[in-house]
């Protein structure tokens, strides 16, 4: 018994090391690319180093891919999942534009949720301690090995369908590409989106602050473009029904503030994998089309 008590810690250490190594090596469905925390950290460090800045929530992050938009301009996708156009976010976004750039462009990606107060602060920067920043700056590979596995990946794998679910690849330019294989179950129901939006009304103060930012940027000689990013017809309908979001009215306000509104001619031409985010080929196609509208693409 005494011997067992002494050997138990050794067994524990070996078993832990082995199970962690197996998890890290063979887990079938880990998020690809860099871990999201590292992605947040890279973006939070940006300052005065871009010609073009993309703002918005996860739709902007996944549907406007810098590498498809231009190979000569420095494009920073500063959009974050779940984001809203809060004051501190807008000012941080503007600070990324290089004041000495020949052409400075600000892209405002719209979904009605970005105009709600669903966030109390801006999470990627709020409450980040120096050690949090340091570790993701200096130990990204090591920490990446221990990146967490989402519960959907776990549930799907336990159900014997390791290929089923969503995936995301986070890129250093601030965007991510994603996709999903939903199998026979089909896409998830949109009712979750309805109840979420129903709980968060559009805040006119956020709209007003956004318009003030557009006007100020225009006054500073920055080109400002706005676009309502494509989503499924069902989500479009929910935004209009629950949030009473009218693209035409919003575009008028946007133009009134001095910005240029880009209307997507056929929103149903793009396919989403979860009602909100475009599948990778369509996100790439959309990014190229959008860059052409802004004449960002290389000659």
């Amino acid at each position, binding site marked *: 018994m005494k011997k067992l*008590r002494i050997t138990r*810690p050794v067994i*524990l250490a070996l*078993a832990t090391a082995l199970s962690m190594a197996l998890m*890290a090596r063979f887990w079938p469905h880990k998020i690809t690319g860099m871990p999201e925390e590292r992605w947040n950290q890279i973006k939070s460090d940006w300052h005065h180093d871009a010609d073009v800045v993309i703002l918005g929530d996860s739709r902007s992050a996944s549907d406007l891919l810098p590498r498809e938009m231009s190979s000569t301009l420095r494009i920073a996708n500063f959009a974050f999942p779940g984001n809203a156009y809060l004051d501190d976010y807008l000012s941080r976004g503007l600070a990324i534009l290089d004041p000495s750039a020949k052409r400075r462009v600000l892209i405002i990606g719209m979904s009605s949720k970005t105009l709600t107060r669903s966030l109390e602060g801006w999470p990627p920067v709020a409450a980040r*301690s120096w050690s949090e920043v340091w570790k993701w700056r200096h130990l990204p590979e090591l920490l990446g090995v*221990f990146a967490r*596995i989402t519960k959907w990946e*776990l549930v799907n794998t336990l159900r014997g369908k390791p290929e089923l679910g969503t995936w995301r690849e986070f890129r250093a330019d601030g965007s991510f590409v994603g996709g999903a294989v939903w199998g026979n179950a089909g896409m998830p129901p949109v009712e979750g989106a309805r109840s979420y939006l129903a*709980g968060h009304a559009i805040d006119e103060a956020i709209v007003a602050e956004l318009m003030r930012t557009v006007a100020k940027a225009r006054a500073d000689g920055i080109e400002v473009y706005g676009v309502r990013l494509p989503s499924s017809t069902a989500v479009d309908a929910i935004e209009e029904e629950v949030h009473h979001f009218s693209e035409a009215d919003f575009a008028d306000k946007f133009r009134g503030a001095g910005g240029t509104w880009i209307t997507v001619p056929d929103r149903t031409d793009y396919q989403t994998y979860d009602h909100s985010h475009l599948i990778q080929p369509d996100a790439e196609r959309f990014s190229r089309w959008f860059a052409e509208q802004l004449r960002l693409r290389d000659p």
Partner: protein
Amino acid sequence: MDFNSVEFVGFIAAFFLLWPLVRKNNTARWTYLTLASLVFYSWGYLRFVWLLLLTGLIDYLASIAMDRYPQRKKLFLWLSLGSNLGVLALFKYVDFIIFNVNELMHWSSAGSEPFPYLRLGLPLGISFYTFESMSYSIDVYRGRFKPTYNILKFYAFLALFPRLAAGPIVRASTFVPQLDRYNPITPLKWWNGTRLIVYGLFKKAVLADQVSGLVDEAFSATTVSGSMTYWWFVLLCFGVQIYCDFSGYSDIGRGIGKWMGLEFPQNFNHPYFSETTTRYWQRWHMSLMAWLRDYVYYPVAGKDFRNKRRANIAMMVTLLASGFWHGAAWNYLMWAGWFAAIMWYERLTGFQDRLIRRGEATRFVAMAISFVLIAPSGIFFRASSVTQALQAFGRLYSFDITSPIEIVKGHVFEAGAVVFVHARSFWFHLKIPPKFNRMRRRMKLYTEPYELAALLTMAVFLRGPGHGFVYFVF
């Protein structure tokens, strides 16, 4: 610094690397514990370290003065209590008072400008360390123990990092003597500590953080929606979140304490399987409840235990103090009020007590009744405002019923966590035959290392997206 962060892993590794060099010499040990605790506290709360040191210094000096000048010890006790309660009031309650004064002025149409908020921020663990500090002064006043004249030993007690941020709240008279000498660590103690740490990490990272998403989503909406079934499910998930979050923290703290040779009191004992609300309070946040019992309930209730009127008043005052301890907001007072109501109901009817006496099966019926009565209190605890609490409470009894199967289908993991936590508590309360228990314990000797390895791996890879510990804000 969170216990479930990479930073803390580095901190604890560095701490135990040097620990063998200092642990046998009293002064070296106290100095080391104090310095390490200050580094721990400074990590995200550097601007409040002075407050911890200052309130501690006042209590240290007041306690020595009580010892030196016993004829004036009441004066020094009030000085100590006044400074602690003053600090709590300033940092925790002033903005709440300003808010209420402004609201009153608004209602009465006084027309004057509202008072500006101080927004001083809430120092980490302020409610915990001020209560410990007060217990030190009160115990010295009552003559339970002699105060230490060594300031390093005092700070090693007050700021000890494994329990600094969120308890357990230790009693000075029982804990300070543990610091007098180094208690050697046996392999068994080390193993028990490791088990607590791994269980705690699993509870926090896998169970609490995984269900937190659903709870946060439900309570982040500015207008409450959702069916009755959905809100009961949210309540069950919140119960799991708060229990696993807080008891996970306590377990990790107790485990680290064991690695140092120190014993902290148990803070939770399967509270959701309590037969009555009184028993629930004997199993939930036990260290706070013991503190309130000794320093609030008993002094108010007096020595005559047959005086029911006074006992009821003492219960109300204790619950009110508990509500205020948790936070400066009306919803915490409503939370305390809810408990007062159900405890009164239980005292008046004695229904659950009769069920307990009747037999084993009816004991579980009493547990179920208590759970149904206690669970809605979570609404008041979690809501961000009174309006939201009342709206959500209304949804609980709206009879707008949707299929629970559909809800569970959409939240498989959360449902699994709820079942797992309650099944474990149920197992704990089952009366297992001693023969089977002996066999289980023997088998555990061989299987436990693999069980802990699996839990630790899950705590790393299957951790949820949650952030800090819930009780850090109290």
